[in-house]
């Protein structure tokens, strides 16, 4: 049933794309071709100045995705700080094949760097290599391309930091004491399971000796299922003090259930959610704090990293450092990854600064 439905869906979506596609292409065709901006310096020169007038292109998974738009706008803002310019182009459907034609167009236009959130790590590899052969620097962000076809990956948060910080966030709110549970997505979700492993590891530390993880429940990223699982957790463990839901669907469903039940104010809920979906529940007091990475910082950092690459400050090797404006100095880790930092905590005082 599933693949069939997907196929039918793709067909319908394709119709939609045909009807309204190509909106972003026309604005860029007139850009003059440029020679490769830097002669791909073999050695990094950390003191090289950032070049003026750099042209960066953000290629998100799809345009019209509010989250992706915020990333690219912040990237453009950063480019403004070093007198460069950045724009966002991309397909209206999140598919690798549509991204490829955009990569080819951007390559022909001679941009200094392409920043991509890959829809498929391998499918975009060939076109990205062709771009690199012409001296264009490739920076992936949000969703990595295969490491051999990009110079850098700006990782929004390390799995370890996500897992540990979730426990720290909850522990702080419940006074490091009491039973806690986790409401995850599906039982085999890679992200969530990695995070949960780090949560369990964090809980073995001495400061959490009075906290006990009593259950990991799975809401399958389904509203009704997440509701039922939350209800079940609260009924089966009457002394439950806190729930961590490291999935955007789960945390919103759990918040919605708790907001209309007697558990509101009794049980602390936190997790990974977007400000828009959680705003209501922060305002009505169901949720005090939750986390996610800050997409503005992600775009900002990606822009600076691309500029540093093009200007020859870094080559993408482990251990090199570069300055990323207001975010300070950053170091390249293993496999050419730059980690944005610990997840960003949203709460009543700052949630209205974000719209995604």
């Amino acid at each position: 049933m599933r693949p069939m439905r997907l196929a039918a869906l793709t067909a319908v979506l394709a119709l939609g794309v045909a009807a309204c596609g190509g909106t972003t292409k026309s604005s860029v065709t007139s850009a003059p071709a440029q020679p490769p901006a830097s002669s791909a310096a073999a050695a990094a020169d950390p003191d090289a100045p950032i070049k003026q007038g750099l042209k960066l292109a953000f290629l998100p998974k799809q345009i019209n995705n509010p989250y992706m738009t915020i990333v690219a706008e912040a990237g453009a803002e950063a480019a403004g700080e070093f007198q460069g310019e950045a724009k966002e182009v991309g397909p209206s459907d999140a598919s690798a094949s549509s991204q490829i034609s955009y990569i080819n167009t951007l390559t022909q236009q001679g941009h200094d760097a392409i920043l991509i959130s890959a829809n498929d790590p391998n499918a975009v590899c060939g076109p990205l290599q062709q771009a690199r052969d012409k001296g264009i620097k490739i920076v992936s962000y949000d969703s990595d391309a295969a490491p051999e076809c990009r110079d850098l990956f700006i990782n929004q948060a390390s799995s370890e930091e996500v897992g540990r910080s979730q426990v720290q966030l909850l522990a702080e709110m419940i006074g490091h004491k009491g039973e806690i549970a986790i409401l995850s997505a599906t039982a085999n979700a890679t992200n969530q399971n990695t995070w949960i492993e780090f949560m369990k590891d964090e809980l073995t530390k001495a400061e959490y000796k009075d906290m006990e993880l009593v259950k990991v429940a799975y809401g399958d990223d389904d509203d009704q299922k997440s509701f039922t699982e939350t209800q079940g957790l609260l009924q089966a463990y009457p002394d439950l003090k806190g729930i961590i839901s490291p999935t955007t669907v789960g945390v919103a469903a759990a918040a919605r259930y708790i907001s209309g039940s007697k558990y509101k104010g009794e049980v602390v809920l936190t997790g990974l959610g977007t400000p828009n979906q959680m705003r209501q529940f922060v305002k009505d007091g169901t949720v005090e704090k939750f986390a996610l990475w800050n997409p503005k910082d992600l775009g900002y950092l990606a822009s600076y990293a691309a500029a540093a690459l093009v200007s020859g400050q870094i080559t993408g090797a482990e251990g090199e450092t570069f300055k990323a404006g207001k975010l300070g100095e950053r170091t390249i880790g293993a496999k050419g990854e730059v980690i944005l930092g610990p997840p960003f905590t949203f709460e009543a005082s700052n949630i209205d600064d974000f719209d995604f």
Partner: protein
Amino acid sequence: MTATTTRPEPAARDRSARSLVDLVFRARELSLVLALAALVGGTAAVNPNFLSGQGVEDILLNTAILALLAVGQSMVVITRNLDLSVGSVVGLVAFVVGDALASGWGLVPGVVLGIAIGAACGLLNGLLVSFCRVPALVVTLGTLYVFQGVCHYVAAGRQINAVNLPPALLSLGNGAVLGVPYLPLITVVIMFAIGYYLRAYPSGREFYAIGSSPEAARLAGVPVRRRVLAAYLVSGCLAGLAGVLWLARFGTVVADSANGWELLVISAVVVGGVAITGGVGSVYGAALGALLLTVIGGALVVLRVNPFWQQAITGALLLIAISVDRVLALRVARLLRRRSRHG
């Protein structure tokens, strides 16, 4: 509850045969109630919280939307048809109405819009099935994809968030009047209205006649096409209403909400004693079926049973229900034959 309306038999014999049939199928609803009582009792014995005020409210709220869809679906199934598109209609309505409410529509126009979209979807299904004579399975499988595609097109990757919805709608989702939550109240009122119509009105009985034998019903002068169309229309309207209730309950809606619910709804209907071959069953049974499936889901979570078993148990229940239907149908047929011979 078979179609025994138009038999010019001697009144006494007719009545006794009819009461026998009624008894057998009442027994079905009775056995559902017993199964429910055992399940709830057992679970509550292990964890008394299951029957606390909040626990009961949760069960009722969880059941309301599924039961509403099951009531609509059972009307279609009774006429020996099927509506696979209900899940997609719920998703479409939830998103479109959510979008409208977020842009400033009032609650009442929003509900009307939701029911109107549901009615339009039901009308399309009904026209294709009844007038174009396309098998219901194919038609509603097709419209399942179409409605879902439309929803994805309208949504374009967006999400409806609770903060943009009017507080009136959100309190409809988890508020209560005199301690009874709104959602189950709405479902119960609609269930009794449709149940009474199907049982007490001649045109209501015709739905059963069509399901028992479409050909015989046509020859007896029953407006088959109009009744089938009406069944789809009702199912569509209720799916539309369910979409609005979905929005009210969950607050956060993406394009594919209620994805896959069509099969859950049909399971509830069949477990509730509505024969998939038409002509037999009641909306009360269907709603009880929905309640049973929901309670099982809740009980397994409370009893900390591996969630894998939930699907396995739902499947087993379906098989039991269908087997019981078959055995009962054969028994009743034999009994009726013997009575009319000796009568």
